[in-house]
């Protein structure tokens, strides 16, 4: 019996390796085909191959899917305009660095010429050094740690974590929002703990008092009663939440339950609160956040994006989708600036884009006049908004 079993497995293995040589091309081709089919049939073969990596399954699937959708929308628009053509192949990494590396190698086999990703920080820390070694251009829409852009081929669309932590503390102090502050953050998440650490440093400099500093972890984010109670009994006037909106929703509901009336202040991760299906948005009244993107902004560009996104995917886009959308347009702008064409190889494209990135200015959904430093950091101003009557209003 065991023999038969090993035979079957050995056969399967032989098959999988045989498939491996050829299939890597085929699998790429299928997704290319689906991408191309949804984009239009113009100039087939002369499109620049953009790879995307992010979590499409598992606990972080919200972020990966948003990025994928946002990027798809942008590629479709760009291809419809004529001019440079893009084709997008987005691969799942389950928010696991190891799988992210596999996805990256898979995309290389496909013939990727520039990488839009990865979506989450931890995998990006693993993939970025690989891209540097291969001289592959990397633009991450949302991985916000500073170490992500350590190499000169890596650029960010989002703010860096320290940048957000400092900006939040400054905003709170300069506008006199509060002096006693409670922080609730996700200590198992690089984004959240990154902002938290810098916020604490800057708050101390600005004379803000942190009266409660409470953590939670990815495995323990069901019950927030203790964290909220501690924040409440510490007498905090403001609760700082450098976390994502799905957990923030739970915390705000718990605050309401316990009758905690402190102001809620957050970073770009809180964007999306108003789009949660089934949520009682009246609880979010008065929540303040620093965000580069607001889905209900009145400018034409945002409205156009939001309506197209809703039509195509049946959801309201969050900041991740907007970052990805801007990311694709940034690659387009840089390609045009650097004179990149589809027949150049990845390394030549990377060299051209590296210089072009510091020369371009992009007016995107997540910021007017975005410019990039050679370090890879983006220069844009965060907007502070407050939720009033179920909508963002500028502060």
């Amino acid at each position, binding site marked *: 019996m065991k023999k038969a079993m090993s035979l079957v497995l050995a056969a399967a293995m032989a098959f999988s390796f045989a498939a491996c040589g050829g299939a890597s091309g085929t699998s790429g081709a299928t997704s290319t085909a689906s991408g191309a089919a949804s984009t239009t049939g113009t100039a087939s073969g002369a499109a620049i191959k953009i790879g995307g990596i992010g979590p499409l399954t598992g606990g972080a699937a*919200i972020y990966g899917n948003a990025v994928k959708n946002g990027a798809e929308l942008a590629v479709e628009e760009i291809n419809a305009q004529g001019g440079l053509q893009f084709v997008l192949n987005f691969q799942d990494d389950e928010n696991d660095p190891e799988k992210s590396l596999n996805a990256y190698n898979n995309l290389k086999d496909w013939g990727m010429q520039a990488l839009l990703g990865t979506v989450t920080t931890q995998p990006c820390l693993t993939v970025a050094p690989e891209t540097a070694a291969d001289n592959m251009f990397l633009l991450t829409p949302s991985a916000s740690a500073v170490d992500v852009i350590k190499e000169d081929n890596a650029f960010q669309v989002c703010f860096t974590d320290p940048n957000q932590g400092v900006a939040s503390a400054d905003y709170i102090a300069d506008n006199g929002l509060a002096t006693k502050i409670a922080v609730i953050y996700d200590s198992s998440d690089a984004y959240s703990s990154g902002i938290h650490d810098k916020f604490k440093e800057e708050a101390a400099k600005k004379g803000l008092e942190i009266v409660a500093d409470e953590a939670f972890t990815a495995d323990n984010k069901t019950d927030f*009663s203790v964290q909220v109670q501690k924040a409440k009994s510490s007498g905090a006037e403001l609760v700082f939440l450098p976390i994502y909106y799905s957990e923030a929703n739970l915390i705000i509901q718990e605050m309401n339950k316990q009758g905690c009336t402190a102001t809620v202040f957050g970073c770009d991760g809180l964007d999306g609160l108003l789009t949660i299906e089934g949520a009682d948005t009246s609880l979010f009244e008065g929540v303040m956040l620093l965000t580069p993107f607001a889905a209900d902004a009145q400018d034409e560009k945002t409205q156009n994006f939001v309506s197209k996104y809703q039509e195509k995917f049946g959801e309201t886009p969050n900041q991740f989708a907007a970052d990805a959308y801007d990311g694709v347009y940034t690659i387009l702008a840089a390609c045009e600036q650097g004179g990149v064409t589809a027949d150049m190889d990845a390394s030549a494209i990377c060299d051209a884009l590296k210089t072009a990135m510091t020369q371009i200015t992009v007016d995107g959904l997540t910021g007017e006049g975005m410019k990039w430093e050679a370090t890879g950091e983006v220069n844009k101003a965060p907007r502070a908004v407050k939720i009033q009557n179920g909508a963002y209003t500028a502060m």
Partner: protein
Amino acid sequence: MEFLSYLINGISLGSVYAIIALGYTMVYGIAKMLNFAHGDVIMVGSYIVFIAVNQMGMPPLLAIVISMALCTLLGIVIERFAYKPLRSASSLAVLITAIGVSYLLQNLALLIWGADPKSFTSVVGLAPVQLAGGRLVISGETIVTILVSAVIMAGLIFFVNNTKMGRAMLAVSEDKGAAQLMGINVNSTIAMTFAIGSALAAVAGVLLCSAYPTLQPTTGAMPGIKAFTAAVFGGIGSIPGAFVGGILLGVIEIMSKAYISTQLADAIVFAVLIIVLLVRPTGLLGKKISEKV
């Protein structure tokens, strides 16, 4: 006063664990398998209620009944196609299949309902009870969850000890072969166990999401593991043990968050579990197993 307030929070978290653990322990006690997919059936049950209430506008009670019916069906289908063929295989084989089922349900949910979190509207209409001049608040969800889990516990104990079907279950759990010889249909008894376990999962899902109102394809996974821990804590296979284990686990978790560290709460919970098992190797209320050669 703070302590009391933490205690109440602990009991309310514990009651959610208890109700999930009841389903776990029921299936384990009779079918002798760790059903790792239990947490994901909970998630499916919650989605059904969410859709029925929020999108189709049904009254919550009707939605819960529909969800229980569909989850029962789901449980029977899973049992028929994934577990029944492996009845005579090793228990590890069934464990791995259960994990496969868990992946399957999570990924199906992802494809059907998407990754965006849904905010679950509580189905409990009970107003919170205020004690000590409003300084202690017991939410309606907590009261309902404790009552429901106590009722389910009592119901299960009665069912297992006093009905024909229940006694058949006990017989199957003691010795499948002997039970068959006594004219008990082992297959349908085990299928029945899964049906009951899955219906309980639907109820547990509604109460979990009412107390902690967020719903994602992975919602059931971690509470599932914790409830499994609770079931082991109380002595897996023991129905009152699951209830006691669940409540205790919730209280320990909240207390370690409150007085030791919010960051290391899980580590502390698991450490307590290890210590308890070292002192009482079959859990708090588990049966002692005597071994024979």
